[in-house]
């Protein structure tokens, strides 16, 4: 019992329309490497944000550290208590030296006025020694280091801040195998010092190698904590995805003629040798874990991230698409993942957003927009997709998530596309609205559109898609028919 460092109980977190976490509770021992496993959207990042004080849990939630109830956390208090999160972006300063990145934080915390480089060097060297890191020069500018070594600096900084619990969020996602080895060595030495780690990863082989125990989250719920040798991979996957599919599973369609063919797409640092075909009237899913390269591939099809090599065929004809405008001219539409930062202009109205993709169609010879046409088009789409409130001049910032998504969908459907690419169509949307969007996508497919759905939600893929392309680390690992497919089938090829 005294070996326990952190105990969380009854942690819940609700957002409008979404239950991110429900009654999650588990414990982490001193010096333990504890893996946190779950799909995208299982609630892992919400849980981390609660532990680091960015979010507050709902009433009743308790976080205890070394027997002491931590009470209400905020980012500074959480850091003070020794909880340090190593994020993917590290929040380091690329323009400062390694030395300063490691030690400056404590100077600020102690409200000191002068910088003592000798002292800083001593501390930093000590940190690096404790971590057995010998190939980083303290005076090097952080921005000049590789991602792997920047991460080591982040860990050294955490150590310098007297971290008791280190939370590593997908720490190996950009590391080479030798860099992963180095990281694991360091994690072991941290373990020996009695520092605990929560290790979030999708790479099951790594999880099995390095963790003492693992906890599984699914759809915001805590499934269980197991010793690393208690579950095999199959059982693990089953627990990750083992749920009833609550969505309507639409009948799968037979293959028709090819509409879009992606042949041997490759892009340095993004993906390699991607091949797949989208057929008329088909809903094709592309799935995989975060960092698999799915969004990068579809962005390339849309001209936002042009490929280095590869050929795109539309209706059998080769086309070169170098920018979104050319993609649109070829009948391709793209609904991006982040509707708030990539899909909509929040401080403009529904109508202004809706007509953004139609500027050519709505203008006459002199380049002047036809206001009547614009009004008509906006009104008709607001009605077709039941966008509420129906006032076309309302700022989209005032719409709910579901309605905002509808505006984005409308803006693209209005271009009369032949191919619709949707990236995470129901992200952050409540269940009822999700079902509506699924229904809409199937209806569109019925009319002959080819739809590509990029999604991390396996139930969604199985419900809505006819076939699915599974990606892993920048490559296609499988193309499967969704008929009779299980979530485990997909996950085992993604992980």
């Amino acid at each position, binding site marked *: 019992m005294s070996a326990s460092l952190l105990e969380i109980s009854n942690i819940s977190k609700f957002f409008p329309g979404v239950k991110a976490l429900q009654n999650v509770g588990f414990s982490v021992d001193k010096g333990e490497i504890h893996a946190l496993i779950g799909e995208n959207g299982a609630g892992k990042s919400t849980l981390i944000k609660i532990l680091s004080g960015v979010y507050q849990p709902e009433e009743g939630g308790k976080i205890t550290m070394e027997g002491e109830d931590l009470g209400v956390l905020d*980012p*500074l208090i959480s850091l003070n208590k020794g909880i340090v999160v190593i994020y993917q972006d590290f*929040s*380091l*300063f*690329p*323009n*400062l030296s390694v030395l*300063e990145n490691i030690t*400056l*934080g404590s*100077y*600020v*915390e102690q409200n*000191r*006025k*002068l*910088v003592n*480089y000798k002292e800083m060097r001593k501390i930093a060297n000590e940190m690096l020694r404790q971590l057995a890191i010998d190939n980083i020069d303290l*005076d*090097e500018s952080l921005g000049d280091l590789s*991602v792997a070594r920047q991460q080591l600096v982040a860990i050294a900084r955490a150590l310098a801040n007297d971290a008791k619990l280190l939370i590593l969020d997908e720490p190996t*996602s*950009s*590391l*080479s195998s030798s860099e992963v080895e180095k990281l694991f060595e360091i994690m072991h030495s941290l373990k020996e010092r009695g520092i605990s780690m929560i290790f979030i990863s999708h790479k099951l082989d790594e999880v099995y190698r390095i963790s003492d125990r693992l906890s599984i989250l699914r759809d915001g719920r805590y499934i269980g904590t197991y010793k690393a040798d208690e579950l095999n991979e199959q059982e693990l996957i089953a627990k990750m995805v083992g749920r009833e599919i609550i969505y309507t599973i639409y009948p799968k369609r037979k293959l028709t003629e090819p509409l879009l063919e992606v042949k041997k797409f490759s892009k*340095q*640092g*993004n*993906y*390699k*040798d991607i091949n797949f075909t989208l057929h008329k009237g088909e809903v094709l899913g592309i799935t995989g874990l975060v*960092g*698999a*390269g799915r969004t*990068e591939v579809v962005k390339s099809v849309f001209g936002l991230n042009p490929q280095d090599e590869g050929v795109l065929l539309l209706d059998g004809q080769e086309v070169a698409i170098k920018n979104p405008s050319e993609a649109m001219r070829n009948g391709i539409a793209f609904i991006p993942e982040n509707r708030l930062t990539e899909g909509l202009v929040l401080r403009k109205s529904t109508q202004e957003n809706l007509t953004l993709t139609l500027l050519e169609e709505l203008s006459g010879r002199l380049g002047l927009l036809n206001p009547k046409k614009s009004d008509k088009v906006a009104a008709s789409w607001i009605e077709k997709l039941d966008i509420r409130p129906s006032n076309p001049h309302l700022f989209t910032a005032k719409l709910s998530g579901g309605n905002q998504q509808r505006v984005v969908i409308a803006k693209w459907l209005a271009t009369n596309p032949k191919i619709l690419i949707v990236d995470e169509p129901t992200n952050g949307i409540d269940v009822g609205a999700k079902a509506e969007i699924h229904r809409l996508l199937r209806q569109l497919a019925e009319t002959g559109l080819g739809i590509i759905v990029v999604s991390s939600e396996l139930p969604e893929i199985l419900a809505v898609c006819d076939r699915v392309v599974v990606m*892993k*680390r*920048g*490559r*296609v*690992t*499988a*193309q499967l028919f969704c008929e009779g497919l299980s979530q485990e089938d997909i996950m085992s*090829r993604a992980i």
Partner: protein
Amino acid sequence: MKKLKMIKELPLIIILVLISIVITIINPSFLTVENFLDLLKSNLVLTMMAMGMLLVILTGGIDVSVASMITAVTVIIGNSLIHFSQNILVTVLLATLCGVILGLINGLLITGLKIPPIVATLGTMSMILGIVLYVTNGNWITGIPQNFIDFGRIMILPKTLADGRVIGIPIQIIFLLPIIILTWFVLKHTVIGRGIYALGGNLESADRMGFKTNRIIVFVYAFEGFIIGLSAVAHTSIMRQVDPNAFLGFEMQVIAAVVLGGASVLGGYGSVLGTIIGVALFSVINNGMILMRIPTFWQKIVVGLIIISSISADMIQKQREEHLKVRVDVDEVASYEA
């Protein structure tokens, strides 16, 4: 050898040396002690102001009101020397006080009212210059007390040349050197200095780390104001009179020198050494143009080109880095199954 490579300013130093060689070939009188001392004196104020502007640019800001501020302070101390007190110390105190107040105005407008630095300093420039020109009506202030003039003429280690001229290190160096050292010290050895770099590099992270970023920004503009005050004293002691139009367009030269010295307008990058080299390079180019008998009207063209090409080079490099960024750790070996 490794240490030498790590000096970021090395390319600039090389360019400086190369240009100096070229100019010397064209006009050998460049490479003389008198010319260098002359250069030092005529670029003293530029160097000091560049120190202040460096801090501002490090935070990602800009200040186009510096020329109007130094003009205002020179007018104030000019009048003070004549009508109020001849005492040099009093003059210095008055000048720095005025400079700090003017700097604080900018700093508070930027942090308190969230006015973008370019617009805020554009506004203050207009106001300060307007008041100064109104009060002086564009007229010079002459009649600076003799003791101040004598002070300005002092030379350290004077040497009489063959033709009877006396050359030496100008006394104003007692303003220049402390400012350089102070700026270097603040940037390198104080937490607030490192905070300047931090917030210029990643404002959000700096906030999260606990830096009081608003206070740091106000400090930067106030510090710049302090330097402007001292520069005003130095300038007046060299020129021995006050010309309200002396600094027209000067802010561009200060900015050009800082940018040339490797500072990035986006913030976070730049150094005292780099800025000094930037000033040196700038002044050498100017001096070179004079010695090569290129008309002074070309100076503005050169300033404009320097600014645009320095920033362009910076931007192009950043874009290249962004383009090559690795987004996905791609598996080299395929693992496809049908």
